[in-house]
């Protein structure tokens, strides 16, 4: 058994050029933590999701140092929303994570589960040669499939 046996091969995707606002709407609609970003030919470009949106909600200085304590900043909800409004019309590829780990359809099952356990997030499955998106493995769906198999 390998990754392809537990992956969702027709996941919702964000097309290159999708705005941050539209991406947020799709994430909420699909109840996903993140979604893969692809180009028109289906080539995988990166991941965009809750992590990137939280980053965009923070002051830019926070991105420069992950260990920085920001308790001294007195921003309100309105300040945070206004930061998100600034980027709402920007394309997702500007902020997506293009360096995060990907799986291949042939990644062995145990290694797939191991990576899911370590990363604690849904992971894209990408063909290692063509770089085309083949599917996505979510923690929820993989556990579901394993239970059905049993």
């Amino acid at each position, binding site marked *: 058994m390998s990754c392809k046996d537990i992956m969702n091969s027709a996941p919702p995707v964000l097309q290159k050029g999708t705005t941050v606002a539209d991406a947020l709407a799709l994430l909420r609609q699909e109840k996903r933590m993140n979604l893969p970003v692809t180009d028109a030919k289906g080539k995988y470009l990166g991941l965009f999701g809750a992590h990137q949106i939280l980053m965009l909600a923070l002051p*830019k200085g*926070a991105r*420069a140092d992950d260990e920085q*304590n920001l*308790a*001294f900043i*007195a921003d309100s909800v309105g300040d945070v929303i206004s930061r998100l409004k600034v980027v709402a019309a920007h394309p997702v590829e500007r902020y997506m994570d293009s360096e995060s780990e990907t799986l291949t359809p042939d990644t062995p099952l145990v290694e797939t589960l191991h990576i899911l356990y370590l990363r604690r997030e849904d992971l894209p499955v990408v063909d290692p040669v063509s770089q085309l998106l083949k599917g996505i493995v979510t923690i929820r769906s993989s556990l579901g499939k394993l239970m059905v198999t049993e």
Partner: protein
Amino acid sequence: MHHVPATLFGIDPLWLSSLILIVTYAVIISEKINRAIAALAGAGVMILAGALNQEMAVRGIDFNTIALLTGMMIIVAITRKCGVFQYVAVVSAKVVKANPAGVLLMLQVITAVFSALLDNVTTVLLIVPVTLVICEELKIKPYPVLVAEIFASNVGGTATLIGDPPNILIGSATGMSFNEFVFNLAPIAIVIQLLYLGIFHLMWGRKMRASDENRARVMAMDERLAITDVRLLKQSMGVLVLVILGFVMAHPLHLEPGTIAMTGAAILMLLNNFGKKAEDQSEHVHHTFGEVEWVTIFFFVGLFIVVAGVEHAGLLNLLAEKMLALTGGDMKATALAILWSSAILSAIVDNIPFVATMIPLIESMAPAFGGPEALKPLWWSLSLGACLGGNGTLIGASANLTVAGLAERGGVTFRFLPFMKLAFPLMLISIAISNFYVMWRYL
């Protein structure tokens, strides 16, 4: 007297060691291979090729410099966690009522002061993120403030023995005290910093504007919340003050700066771990050691061995003779040649290998000038040139690249040429002032 090993294929040690030095430095400059790997590989080849044996190589390592760097890195790794640097930055912005021109000025001043007492890279690592936060709240462009901080870090670092690696190297090699560095370099560093404060105010500060609403956001920041651990703050500040006092008192007590920094690091780790379970202590200490910049430490180790190789082969004596022949053995000409050449070279290449090579070269000029005491103008020229020259380009000092990297993550782009067009002339002004200072005070 050491046993001199036979060189590979019987090649003249002078040519062999020079070739190894040139190849090592070329690899470092190319940045294709990590500089610590390049330096250590060069050191290994120097020994394997027979230019040095292991005993000579180990004797070539300046362990005082290594201990000083490592000790200060440990102290800063622990201190930074208490949030004192954000605290000072926020207070400094509030002191000037969040006026953008005042913020620009204050952030330069605190960067210069921190850089004089700590490593420059560490200083900018701590100041840049909070600078980006303050600029965003004020809705002013962060680029001018970050450029001014680059200059302040390099100028501040020039002022003390521990402020910048070239000074650490010079201080350790010559045995000159912390106080001697302060008395000789701090006055000129202050003059140059004041000049930069004026220039940056005229260029940028006086045109910066922030609305009352945005200034109020900075004034609403609660600096006390930046402090994450009051106990750690007290411990860190106590140890830092003791270490600085130790540097000031080191000479009469016959202590080396490396001993003081390492002892300070040990005391701070002891205080920080006191009363904790053995497993927690191991985890804490492991984490603290993990924050030491081992790339820099091993880079120094490798360089010391490579330089020892060429020094032992007589290359540096030969170069010193050539340089004296060029300057006619005149102290003034030699000092100014060192000042300007080290400034230009330090703007283009890493100043650490340059200074590491220049130190034994200058030392070998002692007989020509009447002994080691007479070399002091040359040491101050080397320090001023190497430290201030780092301002000339984005790659001139590690702190510059660190600022650019952090700024990039915060959405601010630094480009090599625009920075150089602005920075190189400003750097030359500081060297011209240093030229007059060296002539007026020492020649």
